[in-house]
């Protein structure tokens, strides 16, 4: 009993440290600029004002940043789920010459850090004329070695009898993939989907380098540029930060079970 109480006390202190920055972010976003420049600082805003949120939209084209980020995230995620699952199906369920060699080749991509491929990619995208376009933001992110690996592991666990029966009934390979494997792999697909959505939404270095115009800006780059322009106007910056993070926080709270399973899967598998 005593131990449980001590546990709860420590956990609450920890949870408090985790949540305070979020609370402070929201509280600051509701204050006026002059209020944040007071010593000592006020904890609660003198008056709850939502002006900062409107001002974010008035000072930059925040709506555009939002739409760009949504487009980038959906584009990368939907295509990646389709292409990765298709390749993973071939590796998990089909026989063909060179299977292991090709699989190892794909796995080798996992070792290469992002910034190593950054500079040559800048050259490639320049050659293609894709710099500062949606192609640059989305196309390279549609392919994922990690996704192929994760899904293949999961597909291997689906009973083989299911596709053997389907083959007997004259089902094509694509039919087996579409009607047997995909419906049986929803937990893995959702986990990969959440990973991809999070990575795409929060991505910073890639869009920072591959785009330059205001029209192509995504939220992460947008609020970073915002910091440069309004470096001391923290209420405005915090309003921008709140709006950029809220979609992911909401998604996480509703889908956390799947994300947790996905993360745990990776750790246990090794």
């Amino acid at each position, binding site marked *: 009993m005593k131990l449980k109480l001590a546990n709860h006390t420590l956990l609450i202190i920890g949870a408090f440290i985790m949540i305070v920055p979020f609370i402070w972010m929201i509280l600051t976003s509701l204050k006026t600029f002059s209020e944040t*420049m007071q010593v000592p600082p006020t904890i609660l805003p003198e008056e709850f004002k939502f002006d900062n949120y409107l001002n974010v939209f008035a000072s930059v084209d925040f709506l555009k940043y939002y739409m760009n980020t949504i487009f980038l995230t959906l584009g990368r995620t939907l295509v990646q789920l389709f292409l990765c699952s*298709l390749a993973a199906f071939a590796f998990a369920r089909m026989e063909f010459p060179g299977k292991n060699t090709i699989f190892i080749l794909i796995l080798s991509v996992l070792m290469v850090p992002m910034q190593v491929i*950054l500079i*040559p990619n*800048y050259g490639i995208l320049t050659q293609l004329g894709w710099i500062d376009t949606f192609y640059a933001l989305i196309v390279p992110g549609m392919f994922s070695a990690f996704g192929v690996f994760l899904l293949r592991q999961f597909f291997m666990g689906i009973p083989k009898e299911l596709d053997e029966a389907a083959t007997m009934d004259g089902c094509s390979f694509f039919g087996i993939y579409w009607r047997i494997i995909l419906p049986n792999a929803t937990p893995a697909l959702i986990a990969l989907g959440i990973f991809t959505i999070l990575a795409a939404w929060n991505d910073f270095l890639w869009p920072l*380098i591959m785009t330059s115009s205001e029209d192509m800006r995504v939220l992460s780059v947008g609020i970073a540029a915002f910091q440069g322009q309004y470096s001391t106007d923290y209420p405005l910056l*915090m309003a921008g930060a709140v709006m950029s993070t809220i979609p992911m926080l909401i998604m996480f709270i509703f889908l956390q079970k799947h994300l*947790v399973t996905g993360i745990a899967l990776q750790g246990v598998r090794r």
Partner: protein
Amino acid sequence: MSTASVLKKSKSNAAVKNKRKKRFNREAFWAYLFILPTLLGLAVFYMFPAVASFLLSFTRWDGLTAPTYVGLENVITLFQDSSFIRAIVNTLIFTAVSVPLSAAFATVIAIMLNQKIKGMVFYRTLYFLPVVTMPVAVGMVWKWLYNTDYGLINYVLGIFNLPQPSWLFDPNIALFSVILVYVWMTVGNNVILILAGLQGVSKTYYEAAEIDGASKIRQFFSITLPLITPTLFFVFITGMISSLQVFDLIFIMIGDSTALLEPLRTVVYAVYEYGFEYSQMGIASAQAFLLFIAILAITIIQFVFQKKWVHYDG
């Protein structure tokens, strides 16, 4: 057996073989078709660039005109450049401090959460929130929390008459201030991993220990810790790989202040500076490739040393 029936049999055998071969060819055709888009994409945007980056390390290149071969000049320049050496040191300190700290906190939290405690999901949600938050936003909030005059942290410290350091603007502690933020950001992910590891530990070990009268602390060091070493190993490997590549947080923390460049610059920040601010892509490639080699080396060393502390026989 008559010749006719042998002939007939071998004929039908050949037909089966042929059919099988046909099916196999058809299967291979479809398999290649399914793999092709991913393989092509990975080849163009990942495999080829990885090789190209190695080759570009030996060139001078502005990103527009054709690169010229300069041999090892880039690497030699980099190792004579004190600011790059400092970036390497910063990156190594960042990793060496943040990864064990995050793993240690996560282990304690995971063990507390593993006690069939009420509100498990509630705690887990709160601890995990920073992991899903945009790192750029995290950086901005903490910059504001750390603000010397108007920040919340120094205000609270002031109430208790504690020293109020200038977290980011004191060059001696700036890096450690950012490390704290990074630990705050990553601990939730490690909690989930370690919790999964803990749930794989069989209860019988503890029952036996209870009978032998082992204390809770003794149980932790003799049972729990050894049995979760495979998970901890995974936490360390993945943690190191990502912390060696830290960028977003550093970029926001530095912001416009040149005074913060020296104490906070990491290797990836240097890659960004050289490649995209000075247009010296050859040098930037060399930096990135050196980092790649360092990550590989550190990972291999960890795999070699795992025999000394990781127990797979649980």
